[in-house]
């Protein structure tokens, strides 16, 4: 929203105050002002009011005229002018020799053989409108030679406030409300609005008007007649233009002017079209033509202004074409109303049509403003067109009333919230300058919230704190730390575990951490032949490529592997991220935090790669939990899983994830030559596994015994289990030292290290245990290699 310093100055005397400083303070105390500030009129000088005394055709040009102009300096000036609207007796804006318009300095200039000593200007050239159709026509009685800047408010400072920063301030959608803020910031009084006393029309007839729907909170209207003027005063047009609106005609300009001044949208109907004003909704949808000529679909939720049963305007949004003021309109009905903000906002969204009026109504306008707005409107209208007569009494109905808001608090409350000392006098003055009623007894305040702040903005005590502190100025705050006692901070286990996982994978295994999206990538998965499995979906995704929430990070990671398949011959990536594993029994999403790791290699064998990944998982468990992992073969259930070597990863007796090889059909689409393995672990399950404590054992001073046993078996699992089952405290270490294959099948050599804390073991002492292990394995069909 653009704001004019001239307009603001109508309501508060800001003389002697640095305007730029004030605008800066407004930005820090009220609402954000955009960086660019416009100094209107600063780029023109030497332009005066002048009268055209003679007009002659240019002998060699159809367009040009030769003028003699009275610029108030005693003699007539010769001017060559190309404007079509020149005529004798017309007053216009004239740039004398030496005048400046932007970068251009006016000098005597030859035009088709005649010298022009100055230039008649269009309104656009002066910068006060976008009308460039002819030279400016001045109808006011102003002496020739008067500086245009003295005649009209050409000079102005215009600044723009970000509309978003005003969403919660319905009172700031007009200059008067803004002026109240400036008055408070400058410590100057706010002047009352000049308006007519409407009570003098009380004896006139009422308008037939009825609110039939509570979505209309208040409806005020008045009829006026005998409007003779059609063009708005220059100063009014300048202000509208500077604030971003085009001048249309007097009535339209006045409603806009009032909206920009008081924030109250108004509408003028041809009284013949609204003999029986009714405000209501319709049960059945229909189409309605608004005054911009567009047919709009109106449904049963849209509040309408009607003449009996005939809709004439969409309440709070836009008037209808049929009830617009036309040439033969003699009597008009002024509407000034407030409507339910949510209803207007919803209608705006439905109609996809946001107007200056609806934008204001959405903010919960002050219903006490409707009547003052009419009183001000009539005043402005009569100032311009003194013959205008009011022909009805003020007709005003309320269907809804806001509660009066009164807030009580004491000085201590203010002290506690601010943390600084602001004295009672400052508090009272600040609140009063903003229009609050304040009663102070001792240290107890009772504050009456003014109607323009009470619709939704100021409702609680904390809101009052904001009023006091923002005017006080946050830059003026004495800042200090808190006085809170110290307590130990206990870290969250899951978070700590997550951090450790990342550190181990990055620092020890040189993996790369990735981030990705929480939904399946349709197109990318399709390219890899990965089926999008059913899972909970987004209902309002605008991008059809992202709809199903992922159950697993693995498909995402395979998509990432494909993106990077030329990055290096071997790489490993991981992510700690969220997935949703369907719904829980209570219908809520079963959200899980997973760690996914993918190793990709064109150099290593599948077995090397698989064990590399297995060792990473084992390291995580050993390092973070001091626990060993175990594995259990599982069946493939997803298309990306290779049916072989797919194992559940078990920690502390609980399956916490899986490790596997990527199915060749998918793998080949990621890269024809690469081996790809993956693992996915539930981070919460991992974190929740009880860690083994470090149990220190004095190293034995006596040498241990190493026994190598070779078994004909491809798997270590049963061997390891047999050793574990032997439950011998002397076993200190078990390693696989060799595996090989010959005609007898695969064999594995394991080395068991025995030690005793207090003596040197003899071979005989351990052979019993070894014998037991061998017997156990033989009973399972695994024989010792002879």
């Amino acid at each position, binding site marked *: 929203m653009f704001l004019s310093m001239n307009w603001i100055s109508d309501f508060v005397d800001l003389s002697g105050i640095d305007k730029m400083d004030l605008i800066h303070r407004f930005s820090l105390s009220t609402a954000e002002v955009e960086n660019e500030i416009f100094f209107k009129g600063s780029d023109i000088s030497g332009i005066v009011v002048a009268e055209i005394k003679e007009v002659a055709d240019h002998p060699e040009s159809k367009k040009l005229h030769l003028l003699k102009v009275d610029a108030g300096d005693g003699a007539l000036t010769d001017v060559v002018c190309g404007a079509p609207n020149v005529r004798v007796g017309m007053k216009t804006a004239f740039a004398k020799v030496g005048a400046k318009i932007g970068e251009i300095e006016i000098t005597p200039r030859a035009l088709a053989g005649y010298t022009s000593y100055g230039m008649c200007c269009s309104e656009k050239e002066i910068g006060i409108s976008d009308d460039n159709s002819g030279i400016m026509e001045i109808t006011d009685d102003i002496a020739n030679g008067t500086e245009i800047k003295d005649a009209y408010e050409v000079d102005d400072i215009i600044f723009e406030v970000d509309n978003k920063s005003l969403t919660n301030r319905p009172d700031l959608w007009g200059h008067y409300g803004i002026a109240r803020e400036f008055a408070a910031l400058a410590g100057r009084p706010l002047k009352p609005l000049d308006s007519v006393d409407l009570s003098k029309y009380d004896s006139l007839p009422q308008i037939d008007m009825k609110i039939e729907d509570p979505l209309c909170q208040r409806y005020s209207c008045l009829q006026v007649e005998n409007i003779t003027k059609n063009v708005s005063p220059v100063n009014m047009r300048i202000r509208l233009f500077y604030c971003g609106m085009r001048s249309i005609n007097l009535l339209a300009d006045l409603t806009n002017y009032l909206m920009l001044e008081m924030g109250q949208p108004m509408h003028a109907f041809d009284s013949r079209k609204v003999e029986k004003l009714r405000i209501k909704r319709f049960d059945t949808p229909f189409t309605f033509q608004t005054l911009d000529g567009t047919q709009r679909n109106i449904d049963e939720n849209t509040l309408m202004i009607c003449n009996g049963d005939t809709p004439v305007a969409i309440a709070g949004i836009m008037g209808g074409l049929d009830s617009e003021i036309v040439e033969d309109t003699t009597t008009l009905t002024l509407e000034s109303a407030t409507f339910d903000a949510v209803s207007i906002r919803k209608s705006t969204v439905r109609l996809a049509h946001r107007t200056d009026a609806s934008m204001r109504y959405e903010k919960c306008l002050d219903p006490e403003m409707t009547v003052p707005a009419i009183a001000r409107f009539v005043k402005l209208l009569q100032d311009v067109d003194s013959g205008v007569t009011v022909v009805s009494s003020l007709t005003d109905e309320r269907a809804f009333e806001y509660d009066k808001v009164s807030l009580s608090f004491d000085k201590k409350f203010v002290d506690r919230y601010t943390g600084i000392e602001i004295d009672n006098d400052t508090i009272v003055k600040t609140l009063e300058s903003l229009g609050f009623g304040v009663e102070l007894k001792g240290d107890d305040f009772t504050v009456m919230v003014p109607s323009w702040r009470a619709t939704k903005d100021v409702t609680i005590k904390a809101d009052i704190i904001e009023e006091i502190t*923002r005017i006080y100025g946050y830059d003026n705050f004495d800042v200090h730390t808190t006085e809170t006692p110290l307590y130990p901070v206990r870290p969250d286990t899951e978070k700590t575990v997550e951090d450790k996982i990342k550190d181990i994978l990055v620092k020890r295994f040189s993996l790369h951490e990735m981030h990705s999206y929480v939904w399946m990538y349709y197109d990318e998965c399709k390219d890899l032949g990965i089926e999008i499995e059913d899972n*909970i979906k987004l209902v309002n995704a605008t991008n059809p490529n992202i709809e199903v929430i992922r159950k697993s990070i693995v498909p995402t990671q395979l998509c990432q592997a494909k993106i*990077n398949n030329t990055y290096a011959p071997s790489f490993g990536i991981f992510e700690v991220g969220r997935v949703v594993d369907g719904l829980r029994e209570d219908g809520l999403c079963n959200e899980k935090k997973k760690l996914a790791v993918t190793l990709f290699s064109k150099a290593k064998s599948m077995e090397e790669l698989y064990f590399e990944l297995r060792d990473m998982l084992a390291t995580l468990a050993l390092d973070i939990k001091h626990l060993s992992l175990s594995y259990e073969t599982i069946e493939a259930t997803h298309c990306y899983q290779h049916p072989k070597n797919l194992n559940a990863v078990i920690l502390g007796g609980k399956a916490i994830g899986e490790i596997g090889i990527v199915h060749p059909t998918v793998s080949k689409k990621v890269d024809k030559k690469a081996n790809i393995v993956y693992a996915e672990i539930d981070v919460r399950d991992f974190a929740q596994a009880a860690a083994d404590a470090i149990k220190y054992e004095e190293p034995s001073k006596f040498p241990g015994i190493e026994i190598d046993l070779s078994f004909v078996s491809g798997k270590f699992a049963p061997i390891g289990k047999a050793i574990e089952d032997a439950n011998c405290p002397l076993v200190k270490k078990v390693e696989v030292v060799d595996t090989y294959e010959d005609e007898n099948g695969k064999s594995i050599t394991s080395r068991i290290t025995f030690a005793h804390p207090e003596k040197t073991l003899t071979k005989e002492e351990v052979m019993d245990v070894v014998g037991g292990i061998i017997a156990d394995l033989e009973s399972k069909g695994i024989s010792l290699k002879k």
Partner: protein
Amino acid sequence: MDNKIAEIKQQFLSELEKAENSADLEAIRVAYLGKKGFVTELMKEMKGLSNEEKKTFGQKVNVIKGEVTDKIAEKNQELKEKELQKEIDSMPEFDISMPPTLGEGSYHPITLVQRQCERIFKSMGFTVEDYAEVVSDYECFESLNIPKHHPARDMQDTYYLENGQLLKSQTSAAQNAIYKKYKDALVNDGVPIKAIFPGRCFRNEATDACHENTFFQMEGVMVDKNISISNLIYFMKTMLSEVFQKDIKVRLRPGFFPFVEPGFELDISCLICGGEGCPSCKHSGWLELCPCGMIHPEVLKAGGIDPDEYTGFAFGLGLTRLVMMKYGIKDIRDLNGGSLKSLTQFTDDE
């Protein structure tokens, strides 16, 4: 006999001369001093001699034995030195300028900046909380004083799920749960609530270089008996100076957010020009950084905390934005793009 001794000595010296390594030397030692060595054999020849002769001869043999032993030890030392030199000489010279072959892992840049922030907050006594990505309407809106039809909901294009839950559009969605988690300690033991919660947020919007539908924020709250606006300003200034590792000026402007009252937009002095004004701050000297404010009484109430007794402040830092500022990342989509060409550059940055 003397001739024989001289002969043996001569022969020994000549053989010793030829010895090239410790194996040769050991062979010589065995040949002369071993059980059947030449020197040892000489002793056997004493059998037929008179006592007087035995004495003289014995002495002579002892002399030569001593001489041989010493010579061997001497030679041994010499050979050892030679061998050591040879070993040293055989060491090739390595080209240390060869590029490293051990791969380096990488963290996601969000992790690096998130950890940096977490460390700062932990040092000031804050707990670091983790929170879900799928939340309820209550968590994300209702409990934050954003009732249905509130215009603030328009500001957030939220992703809704089929079951009525939603992907959290702001980390503030964790506030309610955090208040409930710590309120007993606050009320019963007087332990202030000091928590940060970094997390991923989602907005249903089209993506481009500056807009992402998935991004990280970090919310922080502090609640106690007398938390004031003055504390808030102090805290934000201190914390942001730590984050940016320089003295940061802050300023507050009124800002409207339903879950705080008063609410602020916090600006920091421009990191590039320090407040003088430059193109990156649009010549204003300030950068809008994060919304903050005093926690709205309704929000405290929803968390089970009595707003008449306790006050608090809350702030929301855009982690993704911090990451982009810190590393000069121009396209926000690089963060979730999964390209190792960009992501492998972010090694540990503590």
